[in-house]
C-alpha cells in the first residue's frame, strides 16, 4: 500500500512538474507557434515576483503569488508590444529574438538580485506514511496543475474568446475580415501564456533555491512536453506529461535521476519518430474514426 502510494506520489509530482512547466509554452509555442526560448525567464519573473514581494512587502504567500503572476503578465505585455508582435509568422526570427531576451533577463536578475535570493518556506506541512514523509504542497500542486489545464481547455475550447483566438491563429487575415481585432487577440493570448508561465514560477518559488537561472530547470521539460503533446496542446498535454512522467519516474526509481532524464529524452525521440503529430494527433485520429 505504502509502496503503491509512493509510486503514485512520485508519478504525480513528475506529472505536475511537466504540466506546469509546459502550460504557458502550450499557449505561446503550441498555439501561437512562437518558439519562445525566453519561456524559462517568464517563469523566473514569476518566481522572483513572488519571493521578492513576499519578503520585501511581507505579503502572505497567496497574495505574493498573485503579485508574481501579475508582474509576469505585465512583462509579457511589454515584450509582446515591443518585440513579439513583429515576429508572428516568423518562427526562426522568434528563436533568435527570444534567446536574446532570455540572456538579457537572466543576466539582469543576476546583476539586480545577485547569484541567489533568500527563498520562502514551503507552505502546508508534511505527513508520514510508513517510513516515508510526503509534502502536502506537492500533492496540492498535482491537483492544481490538472485544474489549471482544465481551466485553460475550457477557456480556449468553450468560450467566445477561445474561438476568436483559435480562428485568429489559424488565419489572421480572414479572421480580421470577419471583424476580429487581430492585434488585441494576439496580445491577450500572449499575455495568458506569459501569465501561466508566471503561475508556474510562483507555485514553484517556495520549493526551490531562488537563482537567476531558476527558469532553466523548466525549459527542457516544457519544450519536450509540448512537442510530445502535438498540434493540439490542450488535448495532448495530459497524456504527454503522464507518459513522460511515467518513463522518468520508473527509470529514476531503479537507477538515478540523470538516467531518468536520458530516458525521457529517448522517449521523446521515439514519440516524434512514430507519432509525428504527437499524442493529440493520435487522440484526434482515433476520435474521428
Amino acid at each position, binding site marked *: 500500500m505504502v509502496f503503491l502510494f509512493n509510486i503514485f506520489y512520485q508519478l504525480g509530482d513528475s506529472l505536475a512538474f511537466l504540466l506546469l512547466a509546459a502550460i504557458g509554452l502550450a499557449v505561446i509555442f503550441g498555439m501561437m507557434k512562437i518558439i519562445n526560448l525566453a519561456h524559462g525567464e517568464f517563469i523566473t519573473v514569476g518566481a522572483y515576483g513572488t519571493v521578492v514581494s513576499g519578503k520585501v512587502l511581507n505579503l502572505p504567500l497567496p497574495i505574493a503569488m498573485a503579485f508574481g503572476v501579475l508582474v509576469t503578465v505585465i512583462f509579457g505585455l511589454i515584450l509582446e508590444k515591443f518585440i513579439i508582435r513583429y515576429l508572428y509568422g516568423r518562427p526562426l526570427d522568434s528563436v533568435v529574438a527570444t534567446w536574446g531576451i532570455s540572456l538579457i533577463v537572466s543576466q539582469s536578475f543576476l546583476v539586480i538580485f545577485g547569484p541567489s535570493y533568500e527563498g520562502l518556506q514551503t507552505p502546508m506541512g508534511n505527513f508520514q506514511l510508513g517510513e516515508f514523509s510526503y509534502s502536502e504542497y506537492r500533492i496540492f500542486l498535482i491537483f492544481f496543475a490538472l485544474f489549471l489545464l482544465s481551466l485553460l481547455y475550457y477557456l480556449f475550447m468553450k468560450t467566445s474568446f477561445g474561438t476568436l483566438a483559435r480562428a485568429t491563429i489559424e488565419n489572421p487575415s480572414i*479572421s480580421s475580415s*470577419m471583424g476580429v481585432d*487581430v492585434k488585441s487577440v494576439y496580445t491577450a493570448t500572449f499575455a495568458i501564456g506569459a501569465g501561466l508561465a508566471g503561475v508556474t514560477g510562483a507555485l514553484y518559488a517556495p520549493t526551490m533555491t531562488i537563482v537567476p537561472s531558476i527558469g532553466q530547470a523548466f525549459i527542457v521539460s516544457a519544450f519536450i512536453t509540448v512537442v510530445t503533446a502535438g498540434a493540439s496542446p490542450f488535448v495532448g498535454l495530459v497524456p504527454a506529461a503522464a507518459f513522460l512522467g511515467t518513463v522518468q519516474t520508473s527509470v529514476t526509481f531503479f537507477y538515478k535521476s540523470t538516467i531518468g532524464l536520458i530516458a525521457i529524452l529517448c522517449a521523446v525521440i521515439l514519440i516524434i519518430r512514430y507519432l509525428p503529430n504527437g499524442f493529440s494527433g493520435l487522440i484526434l485520429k482515433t476520435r474521428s474514426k
Partner: protein
Amino acid sequence: MTKNSLLKIENLSSGYGSTIIVNNFSFEVNKGEILAITGSNGMGKTTLMKTIMGLLEAREGKISFKEEDITNSSPDYRSKSGIGYVPQGREIFSALTVEQNIMLPVYTRKKMSFNVNDKLEEIYSLFPILKEKRSANGSSLSGGQQQQLAIARALIFDPEIIILDEPAEGIQPSIVSFIGKILTDLSKNLKKTFIVVEQNISLISQLNSDCILVEKGILTKKLKSSEINTVEKARNLLSLHN
C-alpha cells in the same frame, strides 16, 4: 454618389509588391442590388475584392461605404461597418466547429441589434445541412457544404452588403443553383446587396443582375441584366476564356 449608392469604388488601383493588378477601377453598387463581376483567371477579380475588404492596400483611388471613406480602414472596421465577405476557397476555420465558424463574427461585436439565436435558427432554416452538422469540425464538410457555411458566416451579423468571391468554384451544379436561389431570394425579399465574383455562366445568368467584365485588372464591359439573363446570351457577351 447616387441616392441609393451603398458602395462606391473610384479609380481604385492595387496589387502585390511592385506589380499593379487592379488598375483605375470604378463602379458603384446600390442598396438591394446584385452586381456580378466576371473575367477569366488572373484578371484581378480577387485582388479587387481583397482591396475592398482591406486585406490589400489601395495604391490609389477611393472606397466609400455608406458615404464614409473607408480606403484606409482596417478589415475588421469594414466588417463591423456592415460588409460581409465570403472569400475565394471558402477559408473555413478547420479548428472550429460548424457553429463556431458561423458565430465567429458575432463574438467580435459587443452587441447586436437583433436576437442572435433567432438569426442562427433563420440561417439554419436556409441551410439545413449546417444544423445537422453544427457540432462537426469545419474541415470535415464537403466543398458544397463549406460554401454554404461560408455564406452563413457572412449572413449571421446581418451585413448590408456581402461580397462573394467565386462561390461556385469546385461545387456541384445542384448546389450552385441552390446558392443562386438563396442569393436572389435574399435580394428580392430582404433587399440584401451582393457583389458576386463569378466565372460560372449559369450562376451569373441565374442571378439576373448587372455584370461587369474585368480583363487585365481593367473594367472592360458593363452589361445590363437583360443582356445576360440566359446562359446563351451570357456566354456570347462575356466571352470567358475558361
